[in-house]
């Protein structure tokens, strides 16, 4: 395939593809956050269960699905998920910047048991992870794969590699 000039702009990745794993992990992060945020409203549950655990569970679960199946999600769908999460936070906390800087980070801190880190450090890490999640849509655009960048199974070449 390397001799075929038409393949030069294709990104060749192992089965399932790391890019798909990163993209789905990013989706898992947002879904985990949504579930954690909503479940936090139930005080009884919050007092008995570390709801922040949903975040790493969904990141890992979706990452594994992405790695093993190569399933991808449209970037627009990811943006809509991010917008929904933002809307939920704004409904919960309004435009109280203090709350927006404290609650999501403390959910991550509790979920990952990161008690040695400060909330600003967690916020910084979280911001970079979310940015990386957004950037993960760059390499696999529809122009490169030759098909719509929708929810799809991976294209495979003769060697079983996906692109």
């Amino acid at each position: 395939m390397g001799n075929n000039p038409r393949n030069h702009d294709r990104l060749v990745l192992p089965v399932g593809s790391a890019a798909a794993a990163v993209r789905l992990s990013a989706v898992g992060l947002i879904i985990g956050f949504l579930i954690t945020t909503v479940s936090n409203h139930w005080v009884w549950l919050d007092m008995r269960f570390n709801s922040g655990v949903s975040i790493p569970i969904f990141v890992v679960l979706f990452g594994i699905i992405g790695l093993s199946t190569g399933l991808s999600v449209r970037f627009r769908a990811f943006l809509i998920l991010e917008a929904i999460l933002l809307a939920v936070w704004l409904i919960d906390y309004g435009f109280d910047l203090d709350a927006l800087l404290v609650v999501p980070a403390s959910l991550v801190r509790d979920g990952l048991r990161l008690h040695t880190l400060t909330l600003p450090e967690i916020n910084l890490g979280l911001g970079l992870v979310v940015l990386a999640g957004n950037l993960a849509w760059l390499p696999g655009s529809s122009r490169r794969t030759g098909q719509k960048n929708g929810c799809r199974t991976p294209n495979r070449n003769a060697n079983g590699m996906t692109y």
Partner: protein
Amino acid sequence: MKKTGFFVLGGLLLLTLFVCPLALAADPGATDVMGKLTKDNPIIVDKAGKTIRLLAEVNGKYFFQPTRHAVVTKGGSNGDKSVLAAFAEPQAFCDGLLQIGAKPGENMTLANKETTRVKGDALDVTVTWPGAKKSYTLDEVIKDSNKKPIVMRFGGNLATAKDKKTGCLLCLDSCPVGIVSNEAYTYGAVEKRKEVTFMGNKDVLPKDGTQVVVTIKLKK
């Protein structure tokens, strides 16, 4: 081009939300307030003054969400669920209260918790920290939605506390596990019957992670 704009905008929006200012520098007056309290020495019992001083950290999450825990030991299963996370264990706290002459109520059980108010000697609880203008009462640092005064009493409950391993030191409703709890409400007032919500007062308490000193004094 349109897509690139989309993800850059989305990323920047989230990055702006997540990234916040760096931690403030340490207060030079810290040692005055903290005295000999450290993470390795998180409780000081003053028998003559009938007071106990606990080292604790502010949990900013409960400035914005309700909780039923005022002070819980960090290592306990409820260590993330309180407005203030202490470093002292329930055993040391209970022993300290006995040493200053406080008498436990020992009237709360898992069976009667929803119909019984905690008994035992009443305690004054105040909170201060380096840079604070004064020592604040628990009523000032924790907001009760009903604006009812918090009445902390020495319930005892050490055996149950050791069995449950929750780390609960001061609870905001009468509790069969917490060493000290609030007589003003029976168990279930926060979680089950929704009679009240308690939240840390962000207008009074310092930011998340700040070390504070909780002083418990036997009322006479």
